């Protein structure tokens, strides 16, 4: 029995599908609006709300049994949800993988014959879905977008093989001949959306471009690190020629500059770096690369200038751009580790690099200023935005203090150097062992503390040197003495263990200890000499030669003093030994010594070794 129809029923009543589609479109429009207009906290909150909206629609859709007419909308909403979520959290994670998996299972649920195989991995799921999807042409645009997101996820987690496989399957090419991800990306042409389709936040074509740039850049960086420079160059040029945003372009140009510099083309490298700087946004990276380039070509002034600019650039807080709402190339790049050419470091690291370069290149005044700047920044309570340069490649804080004191002495500011050393001593002396002993403790907490005696004695050494500069000999000698006391109390222990674990610090604590002892003895000896107490000086020089037989400076000083005291026999013995040593290649170069010690040793280097040797030779040979 049929019932009479109502007039109202003939009017088009919106179906649930239309309602949901309408909600999706509204959310997409709202998201675009928010992207364009809002910023900061409010934007974040609004995007969070929109995300919840998408989640709601998705839950409604997934509450129903999977059905072919609903699937395109469901996949679209899933894609929108993932895109917004990724841009909000600035990265892919397992949640998104689960979203994709859920969506694929829903597609398969509509295909009954595939029901029992639902517990397979992502790759198998994609395989099944892509083979089914030929049956469902309406599904293709959304499915391609989802595949693009999957590729982005795999790319960002370094699953390059999976990414290449997925794209190959999407393209429908079965040849296993080439594994070139870039080629697959280029040949992938996602089907265009119909005009009446529900709205999406980022279309597959745009995603493809992002993927192309990101994978080219990734490959280029990878090859830069492994040192295959020609391959890196071609990949990076590929990245540079694709569409990308300004910050990404800066990164690409910098990487190109790095590559060309290492290939021995500084001129071309410079061109790229200038181009990168012209792009404007974050100019830290190209400036750092430029400093490396100038250092390589030996233009110290330009190198220091670019480092200064870099430090300034980093001190300006980014007027932080609002996080990109869409999936961007930057999201797919690996986090730069210190080995990467795109690792810029923090402001303090750059400041320290600048200061130490000044010190190394003999610009003591500038070095002193930069070190003082650095210490002020680090120690001020307000410097919460400023971290110490103590990442593994850099020196630790006590060494920064020592370098600063050294620079100050070199710049003739002995009083300031004393203050810096005093500060270091007051903050570390309570960590000194009662019976100092170089010991590598297995426990992590005490490992670096074993270096404490070294730092403290070095501080005393520098204080002594500062007093020397101030011509207060008594104090200088007492500082050298207390330095030596500490150094001789410190015993290198567990040599076999020490060698292995010390490499991290970049210096051998054993070698450092030896050289420190020699340096302190020589310094005290020199001071005795200046005081006219030649025998005491001779004692110290002798001791230093015994302590550090490989240390030639000690022998020179000994030779000189012996000559001065007219003890020819002993002098000639030393001379023969020295001559033999010079014949040998310099064993164990000072590579492993920390900067402060290296510089200090250069101070006590006798000024005219060659002439002394020749003079002595003639004086020896003459009587014979």
């Amino acid at each position, binding site marked *: 029995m049929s019932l009479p129809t109502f007039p109202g029923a003939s009017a088009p009543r919106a179906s649930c599908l239309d309602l949901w589609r309408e909600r999706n479109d509204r959310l997409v429009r709202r998201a675009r609006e928010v992207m364009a207009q809002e910023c900061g906290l409010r934007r974040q909150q609004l995007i969070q709300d929109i995300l919840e909206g998408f989640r709601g629609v998705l839950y409604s859709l997934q509450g129903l049994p999977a059905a072919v007419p609903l699937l395109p909308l469901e996949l679209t909403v899933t894609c929108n949800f993932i895109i917004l979520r990724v841009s909000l959290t600035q990265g892919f994670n397992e949640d998104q993988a689960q979203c994709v998996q859920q969506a694929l299972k829903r597609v398969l649920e509509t295909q009954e014959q595939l029901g029992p195989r639902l517990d397979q991995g992502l790759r198998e799921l994609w395989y099944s879905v892509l083979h089914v999807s030929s049956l469902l042409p309406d599904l293709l645009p959304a499915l391609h977008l989802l595949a693009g997101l999957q590729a982005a996820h795999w790319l960002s987690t370094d699953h390059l093989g999976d990414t290449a496989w997925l794209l190959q399957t999407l393209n429908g090419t079965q040849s296993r001949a080439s594994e070139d991800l870039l080629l697959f990306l280029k040949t992938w042409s996602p089907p265009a959306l119909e005009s009446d389709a529900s709205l999406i936040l980022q279309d597959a074509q745009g995603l493809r471009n992002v993927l192309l740039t990101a994978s080219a850049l990734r490959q280029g960086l990878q090859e830069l690190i492994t040192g295959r420079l020609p391959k890196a160059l071609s990949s990076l040029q590929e990245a540079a020629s694709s569409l990308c945003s300004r910050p990404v372009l800066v990164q690409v140009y910098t990487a190109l500059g790095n590559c060309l510099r290492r290939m021995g083309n500084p001129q071309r490298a410079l061109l790229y770096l200038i181009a990168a700087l012209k792009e404007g946004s974050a100019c830290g990276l190209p400036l750092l690369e430029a400093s490396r380039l100038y250092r390589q070509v030996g233009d110290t002034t330009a190198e220091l200038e670019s480092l200064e600019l870099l430090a300034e650039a980093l001190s300006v807080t*980014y007027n932080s751009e609002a996080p990109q709402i869409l999936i961007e190339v930057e999201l797919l790049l690996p986090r730069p580790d210190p080995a990467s050419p795109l690792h810029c470091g923090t402001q303090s690291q750059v400041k320290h690099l600048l200061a130490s370069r000044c010190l190394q290149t003999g610009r003591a005044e500038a070095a002193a200023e930069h070190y003082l700047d650095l210490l002020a920044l680090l120690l001020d309570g307000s410097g919460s935005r400023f*971290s110490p340069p103590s990442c593994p490649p850099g020196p630790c804080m006590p060494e920064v203090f020592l370098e600063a004191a050294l620079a100050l002495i070199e710049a003739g500011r002995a009083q300031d150097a004393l203050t810096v050393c005093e500060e270091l001593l007051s903050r570390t002396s309570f960590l000194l062992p009662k019976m100092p*002993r170089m010991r590598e403790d297995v426990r992590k*907490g005490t490992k670096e503390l074993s270096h404490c005696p070294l730092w403290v004695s070095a501080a005393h050494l520098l204080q002594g040197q500062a007093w020397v500069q101030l011509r207060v000999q008594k104090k200088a000698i007492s500082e050298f003495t207390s330095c030596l006391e500490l150094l001789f109390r410190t015993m290198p222990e567990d040599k076999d263990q020490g060698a292995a674990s010390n490499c991290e610090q970049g210096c051998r604590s054993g070698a450092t200890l030896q050289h420190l002892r020699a340096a302190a003895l020589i310094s005290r000896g020199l001071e005795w000499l200046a005081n006219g107490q030649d025998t005491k000086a001779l004692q110290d020089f002798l001791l230093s030669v015994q302590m550090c037989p490989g240390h030639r400076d000690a022998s020179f000083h000994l030779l000189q003093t012996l000559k001065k005291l007219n003890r020819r026999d002993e002098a000639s013995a030393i001379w023969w030994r020295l001559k033999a040593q010079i014949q040998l290649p310099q064993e164990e170069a000072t590579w492993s010594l920390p900067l402060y010690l290296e510089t200090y040793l250069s101070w006590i280097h006798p000024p005219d070794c060659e002439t002394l040797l020749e003079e002595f030779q003639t004086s020896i040979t003459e009587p014979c």
Partner: protein
Amino acid sequence: MAGTEPRVHYLAGFSCPLGGLAAGKPRVLCHEQEVFLSTGSEFVYVYDQEGGLLTAVYRFPDQVWHLQLLALRRALYVLCARKGIYCLSLESPTRRSSSQTDEDKDSEVSSPVITVDPEACVLPDTTLCAFTVHDDVLVALVQGPAQWKMQLFERPCPGEDRWPGGLVGEVELSTSTPPAGAPGKLTSPCFLPVLCCVSPPGSRVPRGHPQGCGGFMLEEALFGLLFGADATLLESPVILCGLPDGQLCCVVLKALVTSRSAPGDPKALVKILHHLEEPVVFIGALKTEPQAEEAVESVLPCEDVYSDCLVALGHHGRTLAIKASWDKSGNLVPELREYCLPGPVLCAACGGGSRMYHSTPSDLCVVDLALGGVPLNSEQPQSDGAPGCLPPLLCPASLSICSVLTLSVLSRTPAGGTELLALSTKGCLMTCRVDLNSEMPGPTRMTTENAGQKIKELLSGIGDVSERVSFLKKAVDQRNKALTSLNEAMNVSCALLSSREGPPPISCTTTTAWSRLQLQDVLMATCLLENNSDFSLDQGWTLCIQVLTSSSALDLDSAGSAVTYTIPVDRLSPGSQREVTLPLGPSESGVLDLPVTMSYTLFYSLKEVVGGALAPSDPLEDPFLEEQPLDLLPEQEGICLPLSRHTVDMLQCLRFPSLAPPRASVPCPLGPAADLVDTFLETCRAPGSELAGPAALRAKYLPPSTASIRVSAELLRAALEDSHSGVPLCSATLQWLLAENAAVEIVRAQTLSSVQGVAPDGTDIHLIINEVAVTDLCLAGPIQAVEIQVESSSLADMCRVHHAIIGRMQTMVMEQAARGSNPPDLRVQYLRQIHANHEALLREVQSLRDRLCTEDEAGSCATAQRLLQVYKQLRSPSLVLL
């Protein structure tokens, strides 16, 4: 220890859910006279200790997980679950209140509830689990899908929009096991991570309230030993973090500056100090050097004491203490010691000295890490000058206060005691004075006045324990009661479901009557629930009455409305009965759609009876239990037992004003929803005027609709003989038909055989019953039959009466057929003829109805006319019910 002298003073009570508050999330802070308190719900209370009253109540959008107070800046930072961090300025709470909720308008004087403005959210993040504020920075711990992430922000101030520009650095904490909860699903974790900020000695940081900030200062040797030379040289604060998986790690705050091009390397930034292998619930610091403590105390206020021992507590009582000491060769080494304290630990606090308080469900204990509680300690030779060793054993001393959920050390009293602020499971805020004197007051030295004091304190201790006893007792009682109730319910269900024949043990009968309510006559149904079983219906039982009106014939679309009334059956003992009266209609629109079906069901709510008993009686015992009661409850919420079904039809609703005894002089029943205007017009009309309403006109000009039913007299007589013997058959039939009507008495008294009644909507209904003889049906001769005629000016009402009569006839015929009475011989040929006629008519009805759906208005009018005629033919059959 015999020297414990707790003195408990109750300050205020706060609402707590059934089964008490849960551990882990409540917080209590104290600043000067103000106490800031959250109980784990969405409220933050501000209590004035001096005045002894609540000064403000803040309401947040979700549970509050953590509080931190920056006393110097008068700002309260609040972590709201799944929302983020809010910052409240405490300067002028009343002015800042953005919107007052209406619920507490009248009690505004005592505690206005201030709904916190969403604008006050300074750091929105749905995954935030812990935070700490230090000086100008805020450190937050975010729960990622596989690891924890520590983020450093510039400290946001209320009303400033600096995020996300304020993000200074972040680093991932390595963790072997992913945090609890499925990815993508935001569940409320059982244990929150613990964050606290450790400052080096002599740092130039302005000191806030130590408890409020959750931070402390460590002496330089321990600080340098634990956190390295860099942190010491930089004088950088260090964030200590205790994770629910037991990991205790630290991050040097000044090193935690990262950027996109220089991301934080966990290996360089995060140092794992220890692994407790059970959730970390507390991190604190103690001063264990007694002589130094005294020296410091005499010079400095106790806030400036540098602690020399770091402690961390796990949920099950495993305790870690770290101190700096020298080894044999003179090296500075950390001395680590693990202890086992009674668990599960609900909360803990460190006082200024060497004492740590920790609370379990059964007791509040204090341990002293300087004494260690063991005199044996003094026998151990200590190398001179070296920091003292940690005690080999800890002896917790009971304070006889149970189930304290959160603690805050208020101050040290001049007498050397400590005052604690505590919140108990039942929501009681109290202060406890703890006097732990080194010399133990023995019984011999007890004077009269301190005996009184002692008795008082013992009494308060007893009171505290008895609170717990009563709590447990209540839980047991509740469960016993639930079991008894379940047993009864089981018996009732069995009795109801197994009784197939005989009167049901629990029955429900219905009578209807008209009564006047507010100028309108309403048909009232009176339901009588009778309990004839041996069991009583107790708490948890509900009588559900579903009133289902039939769809109106005029409105084909509406499927009839159903209203369900639920009436709690509050203790119906065996043999007793309960009456419920329900209005059946007419509804607002004046329509009473008859027949109305009423179905009765008994519902037993499992949730009501069992839910309370299964709720965690003591959630402190183990927070993991929290989730179980929900799983224990069965899927469905209760049991449904259908009782009976009753139909109210037209015959029950007819009224007979003509039969009413004259002395009652009831005015003619007004139509339902008598329109005042109609009444007015009615009265205005000149008497005798022919101008009448449409009903009158119809009555005058349209012939009344009629229907008739013939029943063989023999059949009727057989059916009615036991109840109506000695009454003329026509009258007996009428009485039978109107048996459930109030007018049956008058009909019986006057032995009427025809009656003039009024339908609920006011139209006349005429029931005429007379005896006829049907000649041409039976071979043996004419059959004596009774003809029931229904006449009414309203077709609809006539149909309803007809339907009701047919219904009764059906029941009667079925009963008689069961008795096996023999019908007389019939002329089959004639019957067949009639049957064929009827079939033809039915077919025509079918086709006419189909046409009605498709035709236009003019055509459908004619069709409807024809349809009515056919129906009329159908209604007056020549058949007799035999």
